[in-house]
């Protein structure tokens, strides 16, 4: 084993273990998962009717006939995940940053710390996406394929906002700025994807928002019985772009002028 491989084998598992621990020990996030996710779904069931809506699948050009309530359950579920995962990862990243600087000074490789945080974020996103998909079953029973598509879409959108939380965690100066950016981003982004009460839904401009890919994938699977893998990859590309930006900012903010 080379010296570099030895370093990775030693530093990466330790960093991953503590990154997962940091991102999952947020009590508020657990509370929101337990209460906010089902409450938000319940609200959708209470206020949105079954009226059919047209939902456009951009990659195939097909106009789907979707049940308004079921579509709203998908987008509302995604909205709650973006907020919870975004906040949890943002708070964990910010809290850990001073110690991360010290660890880098002591010889921790910056790329390994960020890789560990990124993988921890993906694991958390997958877990939270699966949880939201299970909660959804209490309100709506789609086909197995449709449910799997909603699960995958939820996990990917959670990954996108977790990655955004990581980027903001190393970028912004105060807690409030980060929280506002996540709230505003998530509201605009997920609201626009749903044609219920939204005049610009089904327009091409939506393609430029992070939640576009996961929403298209979930709705395509649930209502069109289609697996639009390209849309899922688009969501992962957003997550990757946020993570790479986070890595660049992290490297600047933890830079040591002379290595011991």
């Amino acid at each position: 084993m080379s010296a570099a491989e030895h370093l990775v084998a030693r530093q990466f598992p330790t960093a991953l273990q503590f990154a997962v621990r940091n991102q999952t020990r947020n009590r508020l996030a657990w509370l929101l998962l337990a209460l906010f996710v089902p409450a938000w779904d319940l609200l959708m069931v209470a206020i949105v009717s079954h009226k059919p809506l047209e939902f456009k699948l951009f990659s195939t050009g097909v106009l789907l006939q979707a049940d308004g309530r079921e579509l709203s359950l998908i987008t509302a579920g995604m909205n709650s995940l973006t907020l919870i995962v975004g906040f949890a990862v943002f708070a964990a990243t910010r809290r850990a940053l001073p110690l991360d600087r010290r660890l880098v000074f002591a010889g921790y490789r910056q790329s390994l710390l960020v890789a560990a945080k990124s993988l921890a974020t993906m694991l958390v996103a997958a877990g939270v996406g699966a949880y939201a998909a299970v909660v959804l079953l209490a309100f709506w029973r789609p086909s197995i394929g449709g449910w799997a598509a909603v699960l995958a879409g939820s996990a990917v959108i959670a990954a996108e906002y977790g990655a955004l939380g990581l980027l903001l965690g190393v970028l912004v100066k105060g807690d409030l700025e980060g929280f506002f950016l996540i709230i505003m981003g998530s509201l605009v982004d997920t609201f626009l994807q749903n044609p219920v009460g939204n005049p610009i839904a089904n327009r091409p401009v939506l393609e430029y928002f992070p939640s576009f890919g996961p929403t298209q994938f979930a709705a395509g699977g649930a209502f069109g019985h289609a697996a639009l893998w390209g849309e899922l990859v688009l969501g992962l590309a957003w997550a990757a772009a946020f993570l790479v930006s986070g890595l660049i900012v992290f490297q600047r903010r933890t830079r040591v002028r002379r290595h011991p």
Partner: protein
Amino acid sequence: MADGIIVARQVHKAYGRHSVLRGVDLDIPAGTLVAIVGENGAGKSTLLQLLAGTLAADDGSIDVRGSVGYCPQEPVLNDALTVDQHFRYFAAAYQLRTLHRAEQLLDALHFSDYRHRTVAELSGGTRQKLNLTLALLHDPDVLLLDEPYQGFDWETYLRFWDIVEELRRAGTAIVVITHLIFERERFDTLYSLDRGRIADETATVVPPDGNAYVGR
């Protein structure tokens, strides 16, 4: 010619238009214990951060040879992690094979009982002990300490000096930043930082009988 393990030449640093350091020179040999004293806001912590490399100088040169241990003034720790988890994290950073040194320091500073507590549960003094220990785990060649004994009780203060003395004898160059010197005879050299320069150098020569005297 400079023979120090820490050599600084004409170091300048400003924050915006506020000039903090205006040409600092230092030459600190291995195995010496140096204090840098000065009033609040004199630029002591800035100088230490420049020596550590966590801050870049605007001008001048800094050469620090060998491994460095840096203990910041405010404890830099993670509330969610236990004392032991901090040791494991830093052992990975320093690439240490064992936690033997950590265990020695836990004993020496009397906080073994807190090994499995999270930082959130620790008192200010115990946090400071952990903060210091993390800078010492790898037995560095150069040790930079910013107000290291703030918050220590008298017993811990004495134990701190035992550890420092042991390191000095082993050849470590130690720089202590402080605004309060209780016992100046402990130091080989006192530097005073005033208006951005090392204004005054006081050498404390320790003769063979161990009775120190202070001379200019």
